């Protein structure tokens, strides 16, 4: 055992000596190319995936900030409205730091330019969800009042309405072309809402909202009291409640408490992550998969390039390596010297990569996020995300150096010396 440990120590010492001298006096071009390849592989592995994850994370953030809050309550499928809102409000008011916004929603049809259309021609008309909100409570829970891109947020006027940007032309790029819109609606224009009970009411457009959350941008917002009158529904009927909780309260414990109130099981109480629409969840999964595929491709290209560099290097030194083996320098020593070299290049590549990412790219994308219709893409990096990729790259680089070195060095010593 002691002898084996001593042999291992000698192998490591000699391999380190060979690696150190080879790096110190090796070809500058080869060194730079190797480091550059590893740097690019690292950046590709971290940045592309990080941006895609950043976009998907921001999709969730946008939904949370504009619709659901930390905890979101909806009625179960069997019910039209949330059950036992009295106990829910009492519970929420009893927890310091909690803010909540109860909303009343309904499916409606919206018409525009109905006064200018005559005969058999129909006015522009879209189906949408109308949300009756208390602007003050809503501003404590979501940021939709800050996402107004034209006009202003709901005012005190009874006929004030804010339209989601997906319902009008000229305010968003998220439309696919197949979605119907009201056309070019301007602030101050009138729109007419047709309710399920056939009530008709004319509203004045006071603002256009673009939250980058598709659910919100396909809604229209009016004052809750007005909507309640138009729907002729009781004062304790609510369709959804968005709740913001302080850091001292765990979402899971609040959810449990809300489910445990009388008739609480008739409500659907979710965390913000659970409340994300399934299409958004699918999008997150798809982006995550694309990020991993891009990373895997980058890794593959990187390690193949390193493999080729090491293979060419070892092949061109086959004779020298044969002579060293003849002198008694063991094959594991020579192979390990190549592994040490790639570890050194890897460390330099990682340092440069970390410098590029954390000093330049992350601050840059924080200042200039990639603006997409459904989110703003920043470079999303967590310790585990980076650590896993660093370890994967290290292992891949070591393997890509080990295999070509092993393939050449394990060959017959005499054949190597004689160039056979």
């Amino acid at each position, binding site marked *: 055992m002691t002898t084996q440990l*001593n042999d291992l120590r*000698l*192998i490591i*010492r*000699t391999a380190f*000596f*060979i690696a150190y*001298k*080879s790096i*110190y*006096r*090796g070809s500058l071009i080869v060194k730079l190319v190797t480091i550059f390849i590893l740097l690019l592989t690292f950046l590709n592995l971290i940045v592309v995936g990080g941006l895609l994850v950043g976009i998907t994370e921001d999709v969730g953030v946008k939904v949370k900030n504009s619709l659901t809050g930390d905890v979101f309550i909806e009625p179960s499928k069997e019910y039209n409205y949330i059950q036992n809102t009295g106990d829910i409000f009492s519970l929420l008011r009893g927890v310091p730091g909690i803010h909540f916004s109860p909303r009343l929603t309904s499916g409606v049809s919206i018409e525009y330019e109905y006064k200018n259309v005559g005969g058999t021609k129909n006015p522009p008309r879209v189906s949408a969800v109308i949300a009756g909100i208390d602007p003050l409570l809503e501003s404590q829970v979501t940021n939709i009042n800050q996402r107004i891109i034209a006009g202003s947020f709901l005012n005190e006027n009874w006929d004030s309405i804010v339209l989601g940007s997906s319902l009008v032309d000229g305010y968003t790029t998220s439309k696919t072309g197949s979605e119907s819109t009201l056309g070019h609606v301007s602030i101050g224009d009138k729109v007419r809402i047709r309710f399920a009970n056939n009530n008709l009411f004319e509203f004045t457009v006071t603002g256009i909202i673009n939250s980058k959350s598709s659910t919100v941008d396909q809604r229209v917002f009016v004052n809750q009291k007005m909507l309640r009158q138009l729907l002729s529904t009781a004062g304790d009927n609510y369709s959804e409640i968005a709740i913001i909780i302080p850091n001292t309260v765990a979402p899971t414990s609040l959810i449990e408490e809300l489910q445990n109130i009388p008739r609480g099981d008739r409500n659907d109480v979710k965390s913000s992550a659970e409340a994300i629409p399934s299409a958004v969840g699918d999008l997150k999964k798809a982006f995550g998969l694309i990020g991993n595929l891009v990373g895997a491709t980058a890794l593959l290209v990187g390690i193949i390039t390193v493999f080729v560099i090491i293979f060419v290097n070892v092949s061109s*030194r086959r*004779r*020298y390596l044969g*002579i*060293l*083996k*003849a*002198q*008694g*320098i*063991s*094959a594991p*020593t020579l192979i390990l010297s190549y592994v040490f070299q790639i570890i050194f290049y890897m460390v330099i590549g990682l340092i440069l990569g970390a410098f590029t990412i954390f000093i330049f790219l992350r601050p840059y994308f924080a200042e200039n996020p990639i603006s997409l219709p459904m989110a703003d893409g920043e470079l999303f990096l967590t310790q585990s995300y980076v650590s896993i990729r660093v370890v994967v790259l290290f292992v891949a680089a070591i393997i890509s150096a080990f295999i070509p070195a092993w393939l050449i060095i394990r060959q017959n*010593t*005499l054949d190597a*010396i004689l160039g056979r």
Partner: protein
Amino acid sequence: MIKIKAVIKNFSSGNIVTKVLKGISLDVPEGQFLSIMGPSGAGKSTLLYQMSLLDKPTSGSITIDEIDTSHFTEAQATRFRLKNFGFVFQDSALIPEFTALENTLLPSLMLGHNYTKAKNDAIKIFTSFGMLNQIDHLPSQLSGGEQQRVSMIRGIVKKPKILFADEPTASLDTARSRDLMSALLELHRQGQTIIMVSHEEEFAKMAQRMIHIRDGQIEKDTIL
């Protein structure tokens, strides 16, 4: 020191078998300077490769210091060469990124010698070879003769029991070849066992004993 008994070496290529060594037996005592002579293709280098454990004979046995090497694995042979053998090849084959001194240090480091001691030992030999001023030169900064001397220093710096030299003068001009032979003779005077292959009779005759090989067999064994 080395006992070779009925060593046969065949090379096969497809169905064709070439018999290179045809049952050679030979004893080389400690401290002897043996030269192996013969025409091209006679099998002299092949014999040296069998004796130095760089190759395995098809049959026969090679015993070195009473150790039968027939069943050595590649790793065992490498370890044995490290501890017991030094080599000088026709081409010095020095590692281009290593200085002359660094090229000679690797076997000592692998043997576990202290770096400073290994370096001092090597410097002593460089001094005795009149090459102290070249220890920090890269191989590309040395002449062919100097490179071959560095190769020889690399072969002897760990004080091997046997120094194998395969056509060490083949790539040198006459003057530099004589210098190298003088160095080998000096080593022999100090008790070094040397086994050298040469096709040049002038240098082969400088050894203590010379064997002629022809068609894979010892034709003549002469004490000089």
